[in-house]
């Protein structure tokens, strides 16, 4: 490939005319993007978006932007899934409609997007929104850094999206194993896109995690001890610590692979003294804790939802806290189970196999705690609770198959088969995604003031759960018969029926997603009837419900004083759930800043330039990043005060709403 000074490797060949399907995908992205831009321009919403959202340093708005990003990326990742299911349903002794290379790009982007740009932003969004509220804090510890984290994550996601239009994406799977991803076997820019997207968003995630750790350690409401935090905060703390300590593994693995590709080094090459095994080792030092980064906060969501909808206190709070800590530490001791078959000796495999079984124990403990929370409760089956129950049942099945895979000799049989695919989707869809949906439905009325439509929520729930079982149970069967993962086509006639059933399952999930889109539209349309400013629609137990919906920018006019677990529940029982003093003080909040958007944008350009070897632009944007940080460090006027009158106006409006609701219900 020719390279020029000005454009590096970039040329018109980069446009996706290699296959009509790729071109169509690119067209959807381009026209979809242009459509959104046109719509915003037509609505003259740019100033509003810039002022209220893009430059915001309010943890609540940043959290909502994270969730928005995650929902968009969920669509993209799901389209990939649908295309794979369609291909495999058709490709019995036939080529299907995708070329093998294109099929590889699709499963690579599916995995990368779902893990890094769907599940992670979704979780960080919910944690960002909810944790400061549950702690009784006014914001996270470093509000500006929070905005920067979000925009770096968005920049990484944008790099993945751009690869659809300009150039190609990696064909190396979400884990990007060398030597296949080395320059000699993957000479296109796909792997470079993958590396840059992960490095850029990885910085954002690390900063976001540090922010949450410090917030939880240092910003709790006066009096709140660690053991009085809601369980969601505990899981957020453990997940953030895991991210702080595990992401370096990804940074090092992807960074060294990049050095091999860009500078011709020999970390993971076949020749020159490289060691491909070390990549697997480094990647999974990150990769296994990552699984728990995803799932712990989801556990926290279930631990918030289940007590609320059982109208009981959480059973075994202490045990759940200790189980969470155990999982967090043990998650660093099991990474080798991802490569049992690489040829380490029996002692190594046995050790990591046993540790893997051990980590199932605290997880099992949690399941019993949730069940016992429901036991003899007065259950209400709103959608968040439905997701939680589906989670418990389905997750246990996935956990069982995990214990099967933890046994090294069995892993030799199942490794690289669809059994593994079925297993981890069986963990991540009920465990993480159902948790995210539960949290989305649970906290939506807090964030917007109006609830999600219940009927459409139930429809979405049914389609999703049925779709999940249809899509993944056949994959277990296929795995038992030896069907390998990542196959573009096959020649075993008896497999096809399972693939067809799985494709039907994917269509059911599609119906579920369509229901969710309709649900959002219907809920927004009905908001005039359903909006409630009072702020406690579910009878919540924790402090986020002790604010108006949506909460004011400063969260709490008077910082709550906490001396027990489930502070809001206790306050309700004592008959004094709300505090409305006569006199308010002005409240200091951070000013808006465009630093986050600028850093995200510049990092995107940096990543893009590096992918295409446009060195002048890469150098320029690197200087830009440093320059922006330095310039910002000279800013002095970074906070503003919300006047006491403004606070008082909001609080009395909220008070009126609460009292009105109290009258209506009594």
């Amino acid at each position, binding site marked *: 490939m020719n390279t020029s000074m000005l454009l590096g490797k970039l040329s018109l060949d980069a446009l996706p005319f290699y296959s009509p399907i790729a071109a169509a995908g690119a067209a959807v992205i381009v026209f979809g993007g242009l459509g959104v831009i046109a719509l915003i321009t037509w609505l003259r919403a740019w100033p509003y978006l810039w002022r209220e959202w893009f430059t915001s340093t309010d943890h609540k708005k940043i959290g909502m932007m994270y969730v928005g990003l995650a929902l968009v990326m969920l669509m993209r990742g799901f389209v990939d899934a649908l295309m794979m299911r369609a291909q495999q349903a058709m490709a019995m002794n036939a080529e299907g409609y995708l070329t093998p290379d294109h099929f590889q790009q699709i499963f690579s982007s599916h995995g990368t997007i779902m893990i890094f740009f769907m599940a992670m932003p979704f979780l960080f969004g919910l944690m960002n929104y909810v944790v400061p509220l549950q702690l009784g804090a006014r914001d996270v510890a470093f509000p500006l850094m929070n905005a920067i984290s979000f925009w770096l994550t968005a920049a990484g996601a944008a790099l993945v999206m751009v690869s659809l239009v300009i150039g190609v994406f990696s064909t190396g799977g979400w884990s990007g194993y060398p030597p296949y991803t080395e320059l000699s076997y993957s000479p296109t820019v796909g792997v470079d896109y993958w590396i840059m997207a992960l490095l850029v968003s990885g910085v954002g995630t690390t900063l976001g995690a540090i922010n949450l750790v410090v917030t939880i350690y240092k*910003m709790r409401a006066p009096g709140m001890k660690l053991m009085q935090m809601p369980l969601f905060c505990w899981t957020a703390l453990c997940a953030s610590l895991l991210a702080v300590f595990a992401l370096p*593994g990804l940074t090092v693995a992807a960074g060294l692979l990049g050095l091999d590709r860009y500078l011709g*080094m020999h970390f993971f090459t076949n020749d*020159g003294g*490289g060691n491909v095994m*070390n990549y697997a080792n480094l990647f999974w030092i990150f990769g296994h804790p990552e699984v728990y980064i995803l799932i712990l906060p989801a556990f926290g969501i279930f631990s918030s939802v289940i007590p609320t909808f059982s109208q009981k206190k959480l059973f075994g709070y202490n045990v759940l806290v200790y189980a969470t800590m155990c999982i967090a530490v043990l998650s660093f001791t099991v990474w080798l189970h991802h490569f049992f078959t690489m040829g380490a000796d029996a002692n190594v495999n046995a050790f990591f196999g046993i540790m893997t079984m051990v980590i199932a124990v605290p997880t099992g403990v949690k399941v019993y705690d949730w069940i016992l929370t429901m036991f003899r409760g007065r259950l209400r089956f709103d959608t968040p609770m439905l997701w939680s129950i589906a989670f418990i049942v389905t997750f246990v099945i996935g956990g069982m198959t995990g214990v099967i895979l933890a046994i090294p000799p069995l892993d030799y049989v199942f490794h690289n088969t669809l059994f593994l695919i079925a297993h981890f989707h069986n963990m991540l869809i009920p465990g993480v995604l159902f948790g995210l949906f539960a949290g989305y439905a649970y906290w939506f009325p807090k964030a917007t003031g109006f609830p999600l439509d219940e009927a459409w929520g139930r429809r979405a729930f049914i389609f999703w759960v049925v779709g999940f079982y249809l899509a993944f149970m056949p994959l277990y069967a296929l795995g038992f018969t030896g069907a390998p993962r990542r196959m573009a086509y096959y020649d075993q006639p008896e497999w096809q029926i399972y693939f067809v059933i799985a494709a039907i399952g994917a269509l059911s999930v599609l119906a579920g997603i369509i229901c969710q889109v309709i649900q959002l539209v219907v809920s927004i349309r009905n908001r005039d009837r359903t909006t409630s400013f009072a702020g406690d629609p579910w009878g919540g137990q924790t402090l986020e419900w002790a604010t108006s919906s949506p909460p004011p920018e400063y969260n709490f006019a008077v910082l709550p004083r906490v001396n027990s677990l489930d502070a809001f529940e206790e306050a309700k029982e004592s008959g004094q759930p709300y505090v409305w003093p006569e006199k308010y003080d002005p409240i200091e909040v951070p000013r808006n800043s465009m630093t986050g958007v600028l850093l995200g944008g510049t990092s995107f350009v940096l990543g893009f330039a590096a992918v295409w070897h446009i060195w002048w632009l890469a150098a320029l944007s690197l200087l830009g990043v440093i320059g922006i940080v330095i310039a910002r460090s000279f800013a002095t006027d970074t906070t503003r005060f919300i006047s006491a009158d403004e606070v008082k106006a909001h609080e009395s409006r909220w008070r009126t709403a609460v009292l009105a609701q109290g009258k209506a219900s009594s």
Partner: protein
Amino acid sequence: MTDQPNQHPGINISHARPEDGRHTEVTVFGFWTFLMSDAIIFALLFATYATMVNRTAGGPTAAELFDITNAFIETIVLLASSFTFGMGAVALKEGRVGGVRLWLVVSLVLGLVFIGLELREFAGLAARGATAQASGFLSSFYVLLSTHGLHVLFGCLWIVVMLAQISVFGLNRQVRSRILRLGLFWHFLDLVWIVIFTVVYLPAVAT
């Protein structure tokens, strides 16, 4: 020990309001968390180096390449800059702007000398054909050392920015808090270097 709490290097609470102390506590804890994340990056690079040290692909080995005298000088320079930064922190505690400036400049110069020594070493190795592309062993050596070196370079840039901020703002709360975090960063780099000379240079010469 005395009954005084040992403040982080450079915390100047003599003029502080209580909420300043709180602010510093929060940012310093955040910075510690970042440093620990960074420490894991170095730990993984060390593990990589240790597993690749014999993967020389027929090229030069560690024993043939490394010069212990140079490593010793680098060690002393970096240790000295760590100490001079500490003196700067004491000056900060006493509120002596001139002292802070002087010691920051001395630390900066020592940091730059360290980078110069490292670059000279790299150039010498490259001239003997020992480039990062020569073998897996040398790739891991260069990447480990330059990751540390880039951190030092970044620290130097940070010192320059802080010197500028002292000129613009004087020793206000924010500047003090930043110098204190820069101090943590600077001492941390010396800690990493201890492991580098112990894992990279000394075993190579010992065999």
